[in-house]
């Protein structure tokens, strides 16, 4: 956690791990947790929405695991090796690992799971696009690649490569893998992760129970998890979710609105957690030479884009929208991403400079810009009101256009917007995903901005087969510099995951990727 921390965030974090006395963990008991939305299908391959994705690793363990600072740690594979040409990955499986039904986890299960994960129909199949084959020999599994793929190890630590039991899975009926996955899930699946699914009343509640055969050990030297049971309750309404926590009906509540963080931090019965996330809020700026209607686009001039960035008081917006829980963007990628470079907030507030840049760009007599926001989003409406007031000072007349999410997506695709609000969160712990999304022209025209920078594109293509980590780091550094200078985005802020817990709950973690990790959580009695 090397990033700049806002005062409130610091307070929360400093009191959490450091001030806490090293109490011995206690085992057993049930923890109840209020979620903002329900899972539909918790399956490595077919999990598509966050409420599904973020639960997968509780049920299915991966070969590798994400550790501190983006480092990879052994998971179900004790050892991994990348061949010199970067085209072969060899993994050695941990001995004696069992599924929740007591059957042994074999290399055959791994091959089966990875083959499933490669299914190009699945939403995450392209993460394994470089893989040409998976073979098993004893307890060794070998992946063959088309070309070197620097992201592949991260992918092996990502939820979509969670290991499922081949035998139990194949018993299921279904016309295709998706239907089989649904049937497998509905039957109460045999799992490899710390928990098993006991009950799931869709839309209402879900119950996880301890997997007695889980391999990882806890602090007390006995197998994880500590909790016997996790009861999830689905409470989409923010205020109700918090009330349930405050009234002691649940032990934890996720997605606390930032506006309530200060209040809950002050509540002596609660432990208000802000987990760093890979979530960034930004606004793509249409950088094409001409607008969709054929007229000249003033935003094509990078000086205008820079001016807008300078004219935006990010710390005010962070205060208004995130109530000081967010932090300004320091690069195109979230600070928690591997190879993130940049220690200073991008484009500090400088209206004079903004004005000068606009003048330089030949913008006189004001500029009309439309901000496309999400209808019904309070954050977007706050952002708009703030930007309108801030930009007035440099002669920019900001108008608002409110649309729903599909329409916004459509406008992004077709380039029929000036600036619109958007958000991103990493799905894998690797910079390639976010960099490609935001800056690589061939992938959706650099997040729909139409920004097409040859140097950036070449760098990105090179990095995609770069196996030397140091060279790759350099390439990413360069890309981040170019991107910051060119400013195809209005750089806004990063937000943490805000989770409030009862004081009795300890060591619950939400990863920067969002995964809800109950494996090490425990409850003091």
């Amino acid at each position, binding site marked *: 956690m090397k990033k700049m921390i806002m005062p409130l965030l610091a307070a929360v974090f400093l009191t959490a791990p450091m001030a806490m006395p090293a109490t011995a963990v206690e085992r057993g008991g049930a923890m109840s947790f209020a979620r903002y939305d329900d899972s539909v299908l918790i399956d490595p391959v077919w999990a598509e929405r966050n409420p599904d994705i973020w639960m997968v690793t509780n049920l299915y363990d991966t070969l590798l695991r994400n550790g501190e600072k983006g480092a990879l740690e052994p998971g179900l594979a004790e050892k991994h090796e990348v061949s010199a040409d970067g085209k072969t990955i060899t993994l050695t499986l941990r001995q004696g690992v069992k599924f929740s039904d007591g059957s042994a986890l074999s290399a055959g299960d791994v091959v089966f799971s990875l083959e499933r994960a490669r299914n190009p*129909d699945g939403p995450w199949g392209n993460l394994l696009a470089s893989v040409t084959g998976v073979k098993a020999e004893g307890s060794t599994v070998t992946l063959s690649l088309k070309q070197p793929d620097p992201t592949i190890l991260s992918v092996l630590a990502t939820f979509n490569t969670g290991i499922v039991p081949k035998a139990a899975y194949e018993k299921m009926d279904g016309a295709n893998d*998706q239907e089989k996955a649904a049937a497998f899930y509905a039957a109460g699946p045999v799992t490899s992760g710390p928990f098993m699914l006991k009950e799931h009343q869709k*839309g209402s509640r879900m119950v996880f129970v301890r997997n007695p055969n889980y391999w990882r050990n806890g602090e007390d030297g006995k197998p994880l998890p500590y909790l016997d049971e996790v009861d999830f*309750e689905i*409470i*989409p*309404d923010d205020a*109700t979710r918090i*009330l349930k926590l405050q*009234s002691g009906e649940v032990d934890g509540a996720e997605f606390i609105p930032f506006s309530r963080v200060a209040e809950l931090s002050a509540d002596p019965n609660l432990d208000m957690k802000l987990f760093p996330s890979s979530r960034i809020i930004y606004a793509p700026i249409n950088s094409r030479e001409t607008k969709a209607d054929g007229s000249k686009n003033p935003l094509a001039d990078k000086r205008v884009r820079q001016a807008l960035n300078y004219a935006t008081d990010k710390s005010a917006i962070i205060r208004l929208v995130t109530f000081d829980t967010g932090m300004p963007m320091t690069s195109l990628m979230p600070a928690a991403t591997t190879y993130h470079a940049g220690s200073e907030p991008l484009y500090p507030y400088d209206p004079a400079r903004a004005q000068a840049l606009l003048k330089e760009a030949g913008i006189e007599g004001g500029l009309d810009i439309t901000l496309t926001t999400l209808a019904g989003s309070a954050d977007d409406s706050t952002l708009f009101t703030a930007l309108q007031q801030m930009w007035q000072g440099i002669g920019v007349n900001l108008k608002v256009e409110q649309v729903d999410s599909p329409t916004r997506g459509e406008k992004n695709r077709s380039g029929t917007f000036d600036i619109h609000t958007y958000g991103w969160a990493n799905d894998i712990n690797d910079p390639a995903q976010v960099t490609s999304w935001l800056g690589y022209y061939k992938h959706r025209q650099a997040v729909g901005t139409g920004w097409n920078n040859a140097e950036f594109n070449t760098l990105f293509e090179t990095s995609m087969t770069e196996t030397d980590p140091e060279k790759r780091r350099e390439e990413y550094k360069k890309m981040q510099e170019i991107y910051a200078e060119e400013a195809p985005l209005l750089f806004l802020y990063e937000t943490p995951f805000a989770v409030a817990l009862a004081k009795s709950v300890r060591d619950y973690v939400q990863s920067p990727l969002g995964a809800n990790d109950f494996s090490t959580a425990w409850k003091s009695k």
Partner: protein
Amino acid sequence: MPSAAYLLSRLLQIVPTFLLVMVFIFLFVRLLPGDPAIAMAEAKASDQQLAEIRERMGLNEPLAVQFGYFVKNTVTGDLGRSILMKRPVAEVILERLPVTVYLSLYAVALSVLVAAPLALFAATRANGPADIAIRGLFQVGLSMPVFYIGLVLLTVLGAKLRLFPVGGYGRSFIDNLYHLALPALSIALYTSAILMRNLRASLVEVLDSEFVQFARAKGLPRRIVLTRHVLRNALVSAVTLLGLSIGNLMSGTLVTETVFAVPGVGRLMLEAIFARDYPLIQGLTLTFAVIVSLTFLATDIVQSWLDPRLRQA
């Protein structure tokens, strides 16, 4: 008892209405801009999946034939696949429906419990200070949106006084009497305002009526006058009103289920709308229409059982 012929004719009356309801719902997706198949499919649907949907909905056929497909699919319980839940719509709805039915019945029971005694109290003191006070109070109730009533109850009875849970759904029938108390009360306070106004008016009318005067003039005991002559007659209009307010009740569940995080079809409807899950929206709209017409039917039957004048078909 209503005759079998009456029941049958009443059932047959539903058919044309329902056909029209189906036409509305059928047109619903077709009014959307673009290809209905795309609207009805998941965002990432493959061409093959789209083709399957076209086949199932008969989208390449003339509109009348498409309607035929729609009716056939609906009657056989095939409402398509939910985009949001990735499961058959009918399955999703059936799973959530009992919650809403429970909540509605609970709300009806509460509103009768609140409205009936107050209406009787007010009617027997018509235009007295107590009557005016009660009516004024309920007039205020009628001007309050259900979500606001819910919010106030949730804050005061739930969060502040901790008398009831602030949301969610229980695990058993009895548990739900407790868990759904606040949402049911929120709906009930609104519907009981309507019910109380109507019941009071019909009680006043009945109490004033010649046949109640006649019953009193006959020297019948007060208890018999009240039960046999007053309440029974006032009940007819109350039952009608309760039946007709099923629409209000459903609208009420939609709002309260959202405020109190109750996993019923009302909340599902909003989830479906925000996710633009058209198959689910369609299925839910149809479900609500079925609930309402069944309630109308039940109301008619109860009414004709109470009132012999309505028994001739």
